[in-house]
């Protein structure tokens, strides 16, 4: 997108969004369970979760296309729970873009301004500016079907931001683009959002997308918001097993927490025990969770408190690291070993020892 100076006619007055205790069920199937979340004005916020977790439903609720069974939605401090979609001033970019095929690009973008009874001359100017903003000024007279996927997506964005909505909602905006376009467009979206100062909610099932462009993320699963935080917070301090697993890979070992006086230990299902660092806070039903890079791999010799013996099942060479799948007792874990040229690799079937760095391990209940 071209670096035009943003004219005041497009710059939004950012508004916050607050969702309070929302419940929503389709028939007897609860899809949103007591959801509460607050999005700051001007923030780039993501709803992240696996498919079917209720992200779209929550987004459509904010846009007014879904009705909550209970709960309230505020935009800019105003209760909009009972407003119909066309009175909300909440801009939404649809996953399918939903460009009207019977109108040109220009007419698509002008639509919302026409509905707002903006004078003709002003519509013309604002449409031109919006199209310039997304770098498509020269395609104004095309029909949507004559545009590539990426161009269609930009038209959809221009059509939404031209009416200066209070909030911008994006439902999986990158899912219909190819891998290369995805990276480019997500940067452009972030850039546009920054320049317009627009409160933006971004729905995705892809943690990389959310991590790279969003200020904060709400991780959703089964209609429940599991945790809200910045990408780094979520990675470093996941609130539960789901979040740990969904953001990056995580190894999970079952076992039980034993308390012997002041000292605590974690006993794996297989019988091996680890000391639990004194500083760690450990729930009683905790499992031991660690990232693949928080363990090291060595030949069988040696032992010690936190060493586990296992067998290499297979390995993947990823360039800077080698990823080993290791079987320990009856659980499978992944260990990433840094690779320097000349290093010898362990072959599948080799007996090895895995050392977990317990300082960076997490103790999470399910």
């Amino acid at each position, binding site marked *: 997108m071209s670096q035009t100076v943003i004219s005041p006619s497009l710059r939004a007055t950012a508004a916050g969004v607050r969702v309070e205790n929302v419940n929503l069920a389709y028939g007897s199937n609860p899809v949103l369970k007591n959801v509460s979340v607050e999005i700051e004005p001007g923030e780039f916020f993501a709803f992240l979760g696996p498919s079917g977790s209720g992200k779209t439903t929550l987004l459509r609720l904010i846009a007014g296309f879904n009705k909550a069974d209970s709960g309230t939605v505020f935009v800019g401090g105003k209760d909009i729970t009972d407003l119909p979609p*066309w009175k909300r001033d909440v801009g939404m970019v*649809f996953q399918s873009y939903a460009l009207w095929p019977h109108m040109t690009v220009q007419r698509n973008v002008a639509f919302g301004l026409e509905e707002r009874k903006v004078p003709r001359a002003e519509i013309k100017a604002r449409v031109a500016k919006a199209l310039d903003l997304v770098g498509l000024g020269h395609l104004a007279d095309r029909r949507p079907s004559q545009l590539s996927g990426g161009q269609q997506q930009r038209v959809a964005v221009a059509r939404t931001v031209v009416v200066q909505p209070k909030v911008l909602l994006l439902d999986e905006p990158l899912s219909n683009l190819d891998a290369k376009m995805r990276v480019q467009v997500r940067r452009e979206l972030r850039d546009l959002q920054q320049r317009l100062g627009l409160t933006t909610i971004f729905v995705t099932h892809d943690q990389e997308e959310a991590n790279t462009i969003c200020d904060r993320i709400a991780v959703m699963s089964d209609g429940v918001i599991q945790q809200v935080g910045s990408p780094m917070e979520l990675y470093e301090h996941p609130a539960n097993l789901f979040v740990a697993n969904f953001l990056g890979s995580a190894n999970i070992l079952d076992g039980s927490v034993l308390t012997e006086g002041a000292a605590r230990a974690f006993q794996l299902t297989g019988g091996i025990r680890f000391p639990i660092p004194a500083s760690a806070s450990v729930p009683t039903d905790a499992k031991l969770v660690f990232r693949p890079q928080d363990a090291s791999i060595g030949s069988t010799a040696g032992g010690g408190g936190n060493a586990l013996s296992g067998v290499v099942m297979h390995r993947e060479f990823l360039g800077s690291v080698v990823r080993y799948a290791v079987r320990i007792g009856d659980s499978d874990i992944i260990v990433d070993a840094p690779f320097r040229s000349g290093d010898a690799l362990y072959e599948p079937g080799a007996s090895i020892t895995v050392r977990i760095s317990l300082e960076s391990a997490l103790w999470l209940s399910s």
Partner: protein
Amino acid sequence: MALAIARPLGRLLASPGQAALAGVIALFLLLFLVVPVTTVIYVAFTEKGTGVFTLINFVDFFRTDLFVNAFWNSIYVSTATVLVASIFALPLAYITTRFSFRGAVLIQTLGFLPLIMPPFAGAVAMQLLFGRNGSVNLLLDDWFGFKIGLMEGLNGVVFVQAVHYFPFILVNLSAALRNIDRSMEEAAQNLGCSGFRLFRRVVFPLALPGYVAGASLVFVKVFDDLATPLLLNVKDMLAPQAYLRVTSIGIADPMGYVIAVVLIVVSVLAMWASTLTLSSKDYATVQRGGGGLAKRTLRPWESAVAYCVVGLILALVLAPHLGLLLLSFATVWSFSPLPDAYTFAHYARVFGDSSVYIKNTLVYASLAALIDVLIGGAIAYLILRTKLIGRQGLDWAASAALAVPGVVLGIGYLRTFYDVPMPDGRPLATFWMMIVLALAIRRLPYALRACHAALEQISVSLEEAAENLGATKMRTVRRVVVPLMTGGILAGFISSFATAAVELSATLMLVQSNSDAPLAYGLYVLMQSPAGRGPGAALGVIAVILVAICTFLSHVVIERSQRAKGALH
């Protein structure tokens, strides 16, 4: 076109067997479609007797008040039918697709029923119900002292045709409305648009292709229809004029041919205009996900209004069925709202001495349908699975039959095959097989589409797997392609059969003796006399039941084959 393939070069493009197959089909289309239609056009543009090119026949046509009048009458009837049919179809389509409405499926099904009744069969019933001395007018006269001239002259034709053909608009428009991705509508709402503006700016324009497709089909069908105006005794329209010229003055008179050319030109123009309106607006969007318009719940009073509207329309369009049924059981029914008494005598008569009509219909329609699926299947195979030069030509030729009115094909057959003697000396044109061939040509485009769709859904890799395991092309077709296509082929067969069973336009010109006549013709003849109306109605009821069973069967077949395919994937 197929002859070029036999050259050595053809080896790369198709096997000799495939080339031979294409040759046979090309010959068939040439003999029974291209030559008769070309003959009609040739005769219209040449001087009688000498064969010299001339436009004098057309000058005569436009100088004769009767013909000019007939031309404008046909245009009027077709246009008015489209309007009236739209008035029936629009509310039904909109209400059933746009709102969550109890009985939407039932309404759509009932709305489809008129299509399965031969329109001329409904015509008599509608005269009894809505005519000058029909039930409705008798009651109106009794109660309020006035009558409505619904069935008078051209307007009678419009009314009957609209009732018969409106399902085309209903089906196409409903499908179009259902196919509009929900997000199209929501995007507009999101930008501040709602209510009637939403309908006008987004929903209707998106449904327009479906509407135009249905409306142009109705226009063409009505413009070309022969039997309904004849049965209502309206002669000053184009198709009846062509028929009357050829049957009363003889096949040498050029006027019938000129009218035929006018019929073709208007049909082609109408279809061309409809594709033009649509292509200029590029509606080709890939509609991902979504799934139909959002359905709104009606408030109680809205619901009441909607049910009234739907009820009224359905009562109107289903009345002919009821009328026909009553008539088939009536002893005497005239100048009274309902028949005087009831009897089974008409059915007895129909199954007695008129059973030859039923037998002929079954024979003709099944032969025609068989020819259709064989040729349709073969053309589909050549198009989708070979690189044979000229295969597209076969497709075009077969589809061109869509634009050839039945009357025109009938006239063409008479002219082309009258001078060809059979072994017993009678002209070939009087052989009953000609009726079968005309029916087959008329239905071929539909069967071709069914076969094309069925074959298109079969992945080529299934055939390649068979060939890889050692099966020859022929055996692959027999053991893999045909079994997988069965559903589509069967559906094509049944729908060809059903529509051929009630076709009358071409048949009317080709039937030479009562013993060769199919049901539709018998019905037509019976309906001419008051004494024959009872048995005629009984035949009509049988036709409706026959077609209804077929329609239902093809539905079941299509559904089942789709489910079987779904299980595969």
